[in-house]
């Protein structure tokens, strides 16, 4: 019934001569929290700006961005409830400074922002949310990861084989690679734990996508 109602309403809105355009709408909700289509598009634009890529506003891209925003919301909610020490606005400003540093001048930087249709505070907000998500992962999941010598040996064997396939000579020894391998495995497992936690968190909350926003 809802789908038909919305279809009728949208059809009415799109009648010739009506010339109306949707300026914003709900894209997805997490319980009572709204993620609007404007949030999704802003996210994609900021991400494209940081990646120096064209903005992709296809339905699939918007859906992926909406999913990422849902995850980010869940992470930030949990971090606030857990009372972890989160990065501050000043921390985000330092990151923003790095981003600006890539551009030869302030004018070039502002031109790029205008080109992507975003504002500097959008970038700063994006970086702040991202760094909070990273901090949460570090504090919540990384301490739980335990890497044994067997895990390291198995990982070394795997990567050394790949190295040999791509290079001639002898790969670096296990001891030389230990530090990097430990970091690699820790990152992998922390990410796996985050994935599992997100899956559970999504199931516990009511996450509803509005298909009209992803057409």
């Amino acid at each position, binding site marked *: *019934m809802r789908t038909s*109602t*919305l279809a009728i309403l949208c059809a*009415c*809105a799109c009648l010739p001569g009506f*010339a*109306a*355009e*949707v*300026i*914003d*709408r*709900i894209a997805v909700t997490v319980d*009572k929290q*709204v993620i609007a*289509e*404007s*949030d999704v*598009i802003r996210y994609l634009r900021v*991400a*494209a700006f*940081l*990646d*120096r890529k*064209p*903005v*992709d506003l296809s339905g699939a891209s918007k859906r992926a*961005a909406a999913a*990422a925003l849902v*995850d*980010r919301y869940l992470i930030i909610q949990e971090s606030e409830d857990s009372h972890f020490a989160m990065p501050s606005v000043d921390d985000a400003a330092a990151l923003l400074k*790095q*981003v600006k540093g*890539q551009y030869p001048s302030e004018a070039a930087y502002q031109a790029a922002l205008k080109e*992507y*249709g975003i504002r500097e505070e959008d970038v700063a907000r*994006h*970086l702040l949310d*991202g*760094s909070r*998500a*990273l901090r949460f*992962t570090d504090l919540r999941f990384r301490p739980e990861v335990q890497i044994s010598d067997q895990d390291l040996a198995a990982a070394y064997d795997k*990567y*050394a084989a*790949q*190295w040999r396939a*791509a290079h001639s000579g002898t*790969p*670096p020894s296990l001891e030389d*690679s230990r530090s*990097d*391998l430990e*970091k690699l495995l820790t*990152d*992998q497992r922390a*990410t796996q734990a985050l*994935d599992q936690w*997100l899956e559970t968190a999504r199931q516990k909350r009511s996450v509803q996508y*509005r298909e009209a926003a992803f057409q």
Partner: protein
Amino acid sequence: MVAASIPPVPCGRRANTAISLVYVRSVALPLLILVCAFALPAQDPPPAQAQAAPPGDTNPGGADLEGRAIVNIVPVPEQQPLLQSEFDRRLGLHIGAPLSLADVRAAIDALYATGRYHDIAVEASPSGAGVELRIVTEFNYFVSGVTIDGAADPPSREQLRTASKLELGALFTESEMEPAALSLLERLRANGLYGAQLSYHVDFSSGDEEAGIYFRISPGVRARFDGINLSGTPTQPPDKLGRIAGWRRGLLYIPLPGWRELTEQRLQSGINKIESSVQKGNHLEAHVTLENLNYHRDTNRVTPTLLVAGGPELEVDILGAKVSAGRLRQLLPMYEERAVDNSLLLEGQRNLIEYFQSQGYYDTQVSFEQSQPAPDHSVIAYSVERGLRSKLVNIEIAGNRYFDTPTVRERLLMTPARFIRYPQGRFSPRLLQQDTNAILDLYRANGFHDAQVASAKNDDYKGKRGDLSVTLEIMEGPQWIVHSLAIEGVLPTDDAYLRSILRSMPGEPYSEASIGADRDTILNYYFNHGFQNATFDWTQSAGPLATQVDLHFVVQPGKQEFVRNVLVRGLEHTRASLVAERINLVPKEPLSTVRISESQQRLYDLGVFSKVQTAIQDPDGDEDSKIVLFHLDEASRYSFNAGVGAELARIGGGVTTFDAPAGTTAFSPRVTAGLSRLDFLGLGHTVSVQTLVSTLEDRVGVTYQAPQLAGRQNLSLTFSGLFDDSSDVRTFTSHRLEGSIELGQKVSRANRIQYRYTIRRVTIPMDTLKISPLLIPIFSAPDRAGIISMSYIQDHRDDPTDSKQGYLNTVDVGVAWKYFGSATDYRRLVLHNSTYHRIGHDMVLARSTQFGWIDGMGGAAIPFAERFFAGGASTNRAFPDNQAGPRDPETGFPLGGTAFLFNNTELRFPLFGDNVGGVLFHDIGNVYQDVDAISLHFNQRNIQDFKYAVNSFGIGIRYRTPIGPIRIDLSLSPDAPRFFGFSGTRDQLLDGTGKLINQNINWFQFHFSLGQTF
């Protein structure tokens, strides 16, 4: 380092990046974005074509319209689920203001937060130089009730409704319907309704966004058992277990062919019965489990398969003391739990210790051993060392100054020895600890935070070994006082009111118990005024003096919510106005949960609803005003009751003969039946017919009751009609036809008034009269009485069925007059006063005085039917029922009187345990010929003297039951009346040839009834 070239970086930007970035597959996009952001500083400038797709020209657009003036705002659909004022406020967009996309985004948030919307889109179109906005919304719907038709109980409608998991007032989503339907089918099948068909539909109502859910069930034929499959180690054949389980048909203990229907409850109770049977012989650990329940579709039968696992025989030995088998089953939890483990054995040990301590063996030691002499035989041996048997003879309270000793003693469970009830007293270390804690709680609740209680035992009290005395030494310490109280977060008007009802006021004792009570008081106050999310917190700081405290209460009332509307659903026959009058919620007023509960109670009080559900629609929504839902299930409109009973009393003797005027012991069986029609005409009224048939009385009564008359909780109206054919007075048989109308008014909690008009016609067949022919013309004329009367009842008893303290007063006045339809004019007055006083902890002194007077106006004789007949279990136990007062000088049968005066005094005390009590009583009084004849003289002067107060003394036993105590009284009355009886036939009486003989009321009378005497 391997970092240099182990596989390529996914985004291809940094070949020499650290190894940790290479293989991290983050599904969380924020992490990737951030990782990319960190990678950027080392990156080359972006290629120009990277931004080939212009970013700003894709919906949602509006950038080009931003800043234009809003010329119109159109909600679509026009009728929104919010009040217009709230919709406008939350939207926050105004005609004439420039369009801001940030404001639009905020408007979506604010509207969605109300919970009333499923989807919101904002559209814009140019309109001249401005812009027109359309707020396109899709509403949420909320469960307004789950109606289930066609169900065959069991499962009951309520069970099915619970199984659906569709909660009243909750957000409705269509995805919930399929699981709900499956859950209902599961419940139906569990109750043998395998062929049940179910359909459902949802009625959406757009006005209040209601989703009314209707399930229609065709239950089909309930499946029957057809046998039992057994596995494991069964010791009995399936057929016998079928009977044990109650799955085979039978009438009481008579087996019948065939099997019973399957219900969930019958299946489970059957398994339990089988388990109990296999556990007999102390096989406590034997158990029975249902392996499966095979349904045979072709025959609509089910066959349960049970796994019977026998356990070893358990032998329990008590060494060193004797405990009966029944008591042992109460004390050892393994019998109830049907399992043996260490924790249960320890619990049994503790129970045994407490049991022997309750018997006076305060130093009892119990240990246990477990052994297994054979694989299928376990032995648990409890060794008991009881020690010296003591008697708690004294409890000493010392050191108390703030509370007097009786106040402290009231809190003690320990009890010194008393005759019969506690021959050894009540004492155990656990009771001592409980009593110590109770005293500490008492003191700490009154500001004595440093109070201490030390206990000491002396089992050689006054030099007598075994006599135990317990001393409780109280060290009160200083009393802490509240110096100041600051309340933050409340309005000044609320502050003044709250301070008038709080306990923790300056100058009062400081205690956390008082603060807890204050917290409840404050929160209830706010909850009742629509602040559903009010919170309370408190802190304390040292006051100016060492024992003073400054309190700081912090209240956060939160948002106030109001009633938007009240929706009542589920009515089929009951008039909506009847329900509306009982709901005390008014739109726009604060939403009070207390008022919702009161309304719910009033609806239950109507007696026509089996279930009254209440809910707030979308309770988590952020709306200012809420819709309150009432979903009502009407009870069955017809109820039938039937009962059989018997009366055993001095009610015997010939109906037409003159023997035994004082009655002989006889047995009178009785059968009662009644039919009631509830919710008559949908008005909440009740029509009922009640019949009684016995050897003493035949009666048919019709009653029409209108409770809560015209919606007023304190008024009720009752019409009643009665036909009664009675011979409960030995002197005559009466045929009574009576009608009455009564208006009841509850003035206050304790005070009631009843206004009544009664008209009745009573005829007495001449051949049933057992009085002197000379008196027949006076008393036996057909009587018609039209009476207007009023009763005032003042009831301050603590428990009407078994009062311990308080009082009861009743006044009943009436006038029978020819203008009211009466053949005889008279005035009538009946007064009653009862008082109840506690003596000590658990004795009650109860007394009651009753006085009645009928005055025939103009010297009119009062006919038999209107005279007072009394005596018996509730007036004076010296007499059998209705045997007090003047008697016919020739036949000795009671004539009744126009006045009575009775006084009863009872000393009620506990006898055995908590449920058996005793009574010593004294009754005095009589029925008198007239008010002038009332006398307190208590000796019968001669055989025709009935103007004296008859005394009776006696003892009684009371057994407490949920409906009041069962009463047995034995009375002794040395001055019970003597009188002349008549030996002969009615003809001999008429011609005066019979013989007068001396008779008397037996000195001893026995009364058995339900409820206290008064």
